[in-house]
């Protein structure tokens, strides 16, 4: 198995590593960088739990190779909080609305919804449901997730 030197900026921090060609970006984040907030639900690109931002665009890190992210900027759920402690408005809204239960799909949901609100700060219900349609949650039935995104959009508007 060939190894490759890669340089990736993860959550604002420049990281250099040597990785096997077949290592997925998700495994790289979890196993090499110990950023276990990115979760693996299917490893075939359906469930959305492993969603991260690659150069600002949400991708499924289970079907991206780490070597494909060479030279890119990656943001994971650990990078949403400015200091690792303070909640972003979206994270705060998920807590406030209880837009989660077991928390396993939550990182992917947060990454997808963060991208949505960046593109569209005032989405309608239908737009929220459209944008999150690629992230499966088995706990909540989605209603409180949609409410969380609505709340974050409202709070964002107030600021």
């Amino acid at each position, binding site marked *: 198995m060939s190894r490759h030197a890669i340089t990736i900026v993860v959550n604002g921090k420049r990281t250099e590593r040597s990785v096997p060609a077949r290592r997925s970006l998700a495994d790289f984040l979890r196993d090499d960088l110990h*950023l276990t907030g990115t*979760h693996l639900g299917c490893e*075939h690109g*359906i469930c959305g739990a492993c969603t991260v931002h690659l150069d600002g665009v949400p991708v499924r890190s289970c079907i991206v190779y780490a070597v494909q992210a060479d030279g890119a900027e990656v943001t994971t759920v650990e990078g949403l909080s400015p200091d690792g402690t303070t909640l972003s408005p979206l994270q705060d809204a998920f807590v406030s609305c209880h837009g*989660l239960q077991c928390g396993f799909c*939550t990182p992917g949901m947060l990454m997808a919804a963060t991208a949505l609100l960046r593109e569209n700060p005032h989405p309608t219900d239908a737009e929220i449901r459209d944008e999150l349609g690629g992230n499966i*949650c088995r706990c909540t039935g*989605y209603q*409180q997730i*949609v409410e969380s995104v609505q709340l974050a959009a409202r709070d964002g508007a107030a600021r």
Partner: protein
Amino acid sequence: MSVASPPATEPHAHRFIGKKRRPVEDRRFVLGRGRYAADITLPHLHHVAIVPSQYAHARITAIDVSEALALPGVLGVVTGAELRAQTKPLRQYLDIPGVEWFPLAGDVARYAGEWVVAIVATERAIAEDAADLVVVSYDPLPAVLDPEAAMDPNSPPVHPSHPSNIMYQRTFVWGPVDADFAAAPRRLKTRYRWHRSATVPIETFAVTASWEPGTSMLDVWASIQMPQFPEQIAEALGLPLNGVRVHFDVDVGGSYGVKRGIKHAVLVSFLSRHFGVPVSFVEDRLENMRGGDMHGPDRIFDIEAAYDDRGVVKSMKIRTIDDEGAYPGRSPLQMGKPVGAIVGAYAIASVQYEAIAVTTNKTGQVAVRGFGQAPTNFAIESTMDRVARDVGIDALEVRRRNFIAPEQFPYTIPSGTAYDSGDYPAVMAKAEALADFAGLQRWRDAARAEGRVAGIGIASCIEPGGGNAIFQALFNDKDKTTTFPEGAQVKIDRTGTISAQIGVASSGQGHETLVSTLLGEIFEVEPDGIRVIHADSLAGLPSQSPVASRMAIVLGDATVGAARRLKDKMLRIAAHDLGCAPEDCEWNGTTVRVRGGDAAERTWLEICRIAHLFYHRLAPGMEPGLQTQFVIEVPTGGTLPTADGRVQMYPCHSFSAHVVALEIDRGTGRVHFHKYALAHDCGTVINPDIVRGMVMGGIAHGIGAALYERFVYDDSGQLITQTLADYMMPTTHEVPHVDMVEHETPSPFTSMGQKGVGEGGYMSTPAAVVGAINDALSPFGTRIDHAPATPVDILECLQ
């Protein structure tokens, strides 16, 4: 000791119970700081890959592991023969001697995907590479796939050591069934099919085990939701139970019943002990779907109903055949739990119930949300719809005419279970109003007049909560288990902060929020400052895990019991220090003062310091410190079944009424929800957002079971829905917005009047949705009597 009646000193108006409170657990989850089983790392951790059977039924003639062993990084390989020589079989709950279940197949593989060989390597990828190098030779045998064909005495046997493929069969008769049928002017007979599906959590099963020879201790971290999990590991490995330590401070990424993983845990524990390294196994999705033994009930229902011209049902005969797959385990008991709500919400006087568990060459079944009652409620509710149609009344009216009346509680159903409390007509009326039922009927009729396909469905459901092991005894005479306990430990330290330990892992239910809210209520302190931790199985008290919608009831009341004991001790400490009798003192918030007297008092902090630091100020002989524990048996539990199989199943009975209006796309068969409204009664609500989420999540599972989700096997016994691209789970596009209203009928058996809430949504939704489809199909003269009713099925009915 009962905790049902609060001391007079507790405030009557709740300060925290029923109020909006941000769940404690959510913060770590949104920060990406949850700690799931796959996140556990240990020094020298090794990883497991599995070689599965390619055949549904085959004799294993040879296994060649030489190439796999030669791969650098591979530590070792274990076959079924090696494992079986050194472990005991996994537990069966039925009395079926000779049906042996081990983590790895022995001479015969009994379903496609059954584990045959386990490989341990330094990396998961290397273990998987090695799995590809193992050569297993098979001699295929005829596969048994149809549960009814499997019952034929001439069917090939799945387990030749057992006399037939029928693992359990019993007919219960409760009340004068024959007389009620003979006297009834109307009867109908129907068949329903509940196909195999499951709750399929997004996290697959993961387990890490570490055997320490220096202490003879096995440590296990697992994504687990299972009663008797440490016991079963210890049994299989021949370890004393105090040599197994299961760590419950692991966040579980969804379960809804299925995170049992006993064969996974026994295998990984064995491998750790065998090879002397810590070992981790994280299922990939294919392993989870095919060989994870997490499929749910797979049932055929034959139902007869006897009723009068008004649609009042007098008696029912229910026959259930359940396809358990290759190894029954605990799953047949899922036909036992519905005994405790076998008449639903209806005053049906007599019932005949036949339960048949059949083994086939499919993956094993396991507990799924509702423990078997979702399919049974689907069959009962669908039958009510047919009764309504036969006598010419609507689906709402037939339920109203059959409801147990509010003044009849406590109400004992024919199978022996007393329902604690409820007001079904009031809840149904709330659902009717919330949905604007009359308006929906006008909408439907107008849509039909335009040639559209529209329908309305109704379902109600009894949601038993509390948990109780009595179905073990009901389905196995040799099993006399009547205890199903839950415990809580509470401490207050010398600085006055409160902590509690619970002996379970949580899979999204919010137990830390539950316990801290109740402690805050009892102690009259802000719950956010209270710490709740998950003990391991040796440090914790007896627990049965968060099954059976039981934690608000039993963990809640163990917590309340412990808190009241501590509060009483604090009062006695203060009284002694104040020089008066305890009965002359009272709590005033967090301060104990002399009743009606001067300003003499002891504050919370003073009492804590006396308890921990000033022994000379304690009453002689009093134990220092502030710590206690409380273990509760399930209220109304502790009995065995009667000879005719009557049981007191669970203590508390929640209720919900669902109203669904939907439209069907004539071109694609796709269902579009026009309205989904429900009214829900789980007694006293402790955290409104958690309750709402539980109900809503159950509805989403119900929509999946009603319309999309099915494990499909081909004619050779291969599972063909192996990925999340084939096994269709509802997304934001398929789950509609739901309007919900609460009704509170407190339970007399719990401290705050709370009941269970985890399963009712899943029990009601399939019947409501399929009922609405059948209403929509009624102008076409067709109907669907199975779930899921897929778009293809619906299109066929529109032809």
